[in-house]
């Protein structure tokens, strides 16, 4: 049986929201995340300034700047593919391309987390752990926070990818995911510059 619309029942027609609810919710989440990372950056600067001259990794450990630069390029590339995927998803005839680009984004994000984990294992083997000094503790806290965000986002994207393949992913869901992913991508160069070149 066909359901009656609001107009048919004499009610005013319900207008679609200007911004999808998922995007508004993600905007609020991103706001809290901005404050979280800003507080981490501020505390990092204050701790570094207080140590004044004694700010270095423990022992002979050197941070993998070049390898992380490559990793940064991977993450930035994933931001571009995510943006293109969202654009393609708006056009019904380009849904296959959107799936391909979204899958590529997930792969690049997973590679970023994988390389990051590999570098961490090497650093820990060299003796740089959370307990080996204030530099190491702040390094693992800031970079680890970001890595946790990337890992969580990759898992959510994998779930959304399944929904996309099944044709159940809404435009709003895709836009919300793009918003969060672009935030995660945009915050990384700031952290990389701050922590690895300090």
């Amino acid at each position, binding site marked *: 049986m066909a359901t009656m619309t609001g107009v048919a029942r004499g009610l005013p027609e319900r207008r679609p929201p*200007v*911004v999808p609810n998922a995007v508004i919710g993600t*905007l609020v989440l*991103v*706001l809290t995340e*901005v*404050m979280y990372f*800003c*507080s981490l*950056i*501020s*505390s990092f*600067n*204050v701790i*570094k*300034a*207080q140590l*004044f001259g004694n700010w270095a990794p423990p022992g002979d450990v050197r941070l993998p700047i070049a390898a992380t630069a490559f990793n940064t390029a991977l993450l930035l590339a994933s931001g571009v593919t995510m943006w293109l995927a969202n654009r393609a998803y708006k056009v019904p005839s380009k849904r296959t391309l959107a799936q391909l680009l979204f899958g590529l984004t997930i792969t690049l994000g997973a590679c970023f987390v994988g390389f990051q984990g590999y570098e961490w294992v090497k650093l820990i083997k060299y003796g740089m752990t959370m307990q080996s000094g204030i530099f190491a503790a702040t390094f693992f806290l800031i970079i680890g926070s970001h890595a946790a965000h990337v890992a969580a986002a990759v898992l959510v994207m994998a779930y959304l990818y399944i929904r996309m393949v099944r044709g159940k992913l809404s435009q709003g869901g895709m836009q919300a995911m793009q918003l969060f992913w672009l935030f995660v991508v945009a915050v990384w160069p700031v952290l990389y510059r701050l922590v690895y070149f300090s």
Partner: protein
Amino acid sequence: MFSLMSLLLKSMSTSVPAFACAVCGNLGEDPAAGAILAGTGLLSVAPILTIGGGIYYVYRKTKVDRGAASDSDADSSSTESPMPVSE
């Protein structure tokens, strides 16, 4: 009134610089003071910029959507049949 004014001027001429907090007083001498001030600035500006950016995004989206809706209304009215529909 005159005595009050003279008291005020005298207090201004004899006062020494007073700082609201110890951090501001040490600016330039202690590197941590600069870092704390920079952090305060960052944490003050970040929410304003983020909320402002969100509001601006919604404003732009509303404007674009309204423009698209008015364009489609104009198109549909121009393609309507000139013949009245009989009831």
